[in-house]
């Protein structure tokens, strides 16, 4: 190893060992057998038999899926509120129903991902600003009733709309929609902090760019829903929001790739890389189509909307996978931390 401190150093304890990446710690988790082998991005660091330092996240597909549905709910609610205030009833209906549907999916995904789903309500015992999951729970609790009221107003059968309770519900729906839209930016952005407020190297190191990736992705997916389901005549704001959201997402994601340091290299390799490249192409294609052919053709608008939705979903899955990969290889933990310690001072041994 490095002899830069002038002391005799031994090679890493597992130097030359053929089995340093053997997936042997399978007990109790049942996934050791098919653990994806990650290539060590930088060699020459020391580790305990090549074993990971951190625990990989216990979250599975439901959490990245929630990142997508939560963002979709936020984007749709914002679009619906704008459409409501500017007199675009079809776009408003799409946004309200889509936002509420995404909220229901989010709730299911969040509860089902718990180890003890029947204890979901324990989240409501406390409100903790240091726990983005607690903050997010309360954002969802606040967002939910408004979104539900707005969706109920949309679902009211036409014959009842003229009645007194019908008009009341219509007015309540507008208030509810605005209420939901007020919490939507928080709903779209807190999930970035949720991932960054962890010791997972790739997520924590992405803390500056990730909020912009996620809010951009939320805007693009909400707009995508509008393009998919609303008539072309009303969808002009959705087309513009698609372009703005996609631009923010793509620029922030590219900046993330170019960040110096080993931690975020996890995004540029393997499955995370493939997912994020596919997301980029779909989002870019969807946004370009949105501002060009989608102005005239309903099928083109629908295709653009689908591409934006798929791009947003893949972006979340790619970001999630990058973080997981960075916990499985000790290099992502040891190399940057060792460099930091060596750089901070040269206290030598026995500080």
């Amino acid at each position, binding site marked *: 190893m490095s002899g830069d401190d002038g002391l005799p150093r031994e090679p890493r*304890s597992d130097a*030359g*060992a*053929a*089995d340093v990446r*053997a997936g*042997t*710690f399978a007990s*109790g988790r049942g996934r050791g057998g098919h653990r994806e082998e990650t290539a060590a991005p930088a060699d020459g660091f*020391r580790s*305990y*038999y090549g074993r990971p*330092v*951190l*625990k990989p996240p216990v*979250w599975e597909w439901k959490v990245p899926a929630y990142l997508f549905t939560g963002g979709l709910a*936020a984007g749709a609610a*914002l*679009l619906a509120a*704008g459409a409501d205030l500017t007199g675009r009833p079809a776009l408003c209906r799409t946004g309200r129903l889509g936002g509420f549907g995404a909220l229901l999916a989010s709730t299911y995904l969040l509860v089902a*991902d*718990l*180890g*003890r789903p029947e204890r979901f309500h*324990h*989240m409501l*015992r*406390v409100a*903790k*600003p*240091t*726990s983005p*999951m607690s903050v997010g729970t309360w954002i969802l609790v606040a967002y939910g009733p408004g979104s539900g009221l707005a969706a109920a107003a949309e679902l009211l059968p036409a014959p009842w709309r003229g009645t007194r309770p019908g008009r009341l519900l219509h007015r309540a729906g507008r208030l509810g929609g605005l209420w939901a839209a007020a919490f939507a930016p928080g709903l*779209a*952005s*807190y999930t*970035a*902090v949720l991932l960054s*407020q*962890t*010791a997972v190297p790739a997520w*924590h190191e992405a*803390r*500056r760019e990730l909020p912009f990736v996620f*809010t951009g992705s*939320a*805007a693009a997916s909400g707009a995508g829903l509008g393009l998919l389901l609303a008539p072309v005549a009303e969808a002009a*704001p959705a087309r*513009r*929001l698609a372009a703005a*959201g996609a631009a*923010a997402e793509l620029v922030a994601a590219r900046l993330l790739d170019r960040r110096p340091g080993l931690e975020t290299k996890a995004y540029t390799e393997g499955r995370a890389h493939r997912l994020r490249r596919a997301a980029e192409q779909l989002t870019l294609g969807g946004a370009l189509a949105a501002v060009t052919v989608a102005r005239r053709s309903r099928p083109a608008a629908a295709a653009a909307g689908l591409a934006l939705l798929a791009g947003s979903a893949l972006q979340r899955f790619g970001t999630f996978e990058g973080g997981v990969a960075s*916990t499985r290889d*000790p290099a992502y933990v040891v190399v940057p*931390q*060792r460099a930091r*310690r060596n750089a901070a001072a040269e206290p030598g*041994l*026995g*500080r």
Partner: protein
Amino acid sequence: MTDEHSLYGPLQDPAADAGHREHPPRVGFFTDTSVCIGCKACEVACKEWNDVPEDGLDLLGMSFDNTGMLGASSWRHVAFVEQERPLGRQDPGLTGLPTGPSATGHTAEVTADALREAPRGGGELGTGPVDLGFPSFDLPGAAGDAGNRTDFRWLMASDVCKHCTHAGCLDVCPTGALFRTEFGSVVVQPDICNGCGYCVSGCPYGVIDRRADDGRAWKCTLCYDRLRGGLEPACAKACPTDSIQFGPLDELRERADRRLEQLHEAGVAEARLYGRDPDDGVGGDGAFFLLLDDPEVYGLPPDPVVPTRDLPAMWRYAGAAASALLAATVAVFVEPGAGGRR
């Protein structure tokens, strides 16, 4: 206490910061790995006392460590490192002998070579006396020279939850299941935990984990029940060499400093303390270590930082992104040109 100190940096009294008014002094572990013999009595005592379930009787095939790492059902873990240390310019005379790490291709190659060269084709191997490094009745060095010393060393270290001053797991727990006890330790309440799994990713040491069959997160409690009963934790009680020392943290830090000085005087220059410094990324560990090599060799992160250190900045970035989203939404509904809406 300022807010910054609650999130990051030196914090004299984490129990008081968590709201305990009258509380006993902060306690913890000092694990002196220089006297650890790798007996794993701590692992067994912990499992026994805390009723931690069996988590697989696996042979990991890398060393005498078959626990692997800390986890939901391993609250103490004895790391076992096998190292060759070059002995300056001396030739230890071991070239060609099977002294490499066990169960590796390297061993196999060396053994194969040695067998070919051996007078009886390896037939004598396993029949003659071999020094396995176990303690003997003779004093070390009694043979008069360097004796049977080799360039091979074993490092053993009993790892445990660090009970950080700023605990990542505690900060992110959304239910309040994880809490700071009056002793300054960090404990999960199993009747509250709903298995969200956030703490697993929040821990910069990779300590806490979720049990697959049970759905809840588990880790070392510093034997909270024993502490409340005036007893020391089971692992420290069971440790036959006092490698695991339990006591008030201030006392342990003094003791560790003295031990480090002693070792340095004795020429063990590679000895260093890990997790003792209250200025480090987690505000100092409640369970800290004396190590004989870099922390990463034992599977410990070299410079862990509690993720919460950057939380205020992260909320600011999120706020900026949220504001941008709101502004963009308003902007897309404003018609370009003052014409009528489409």
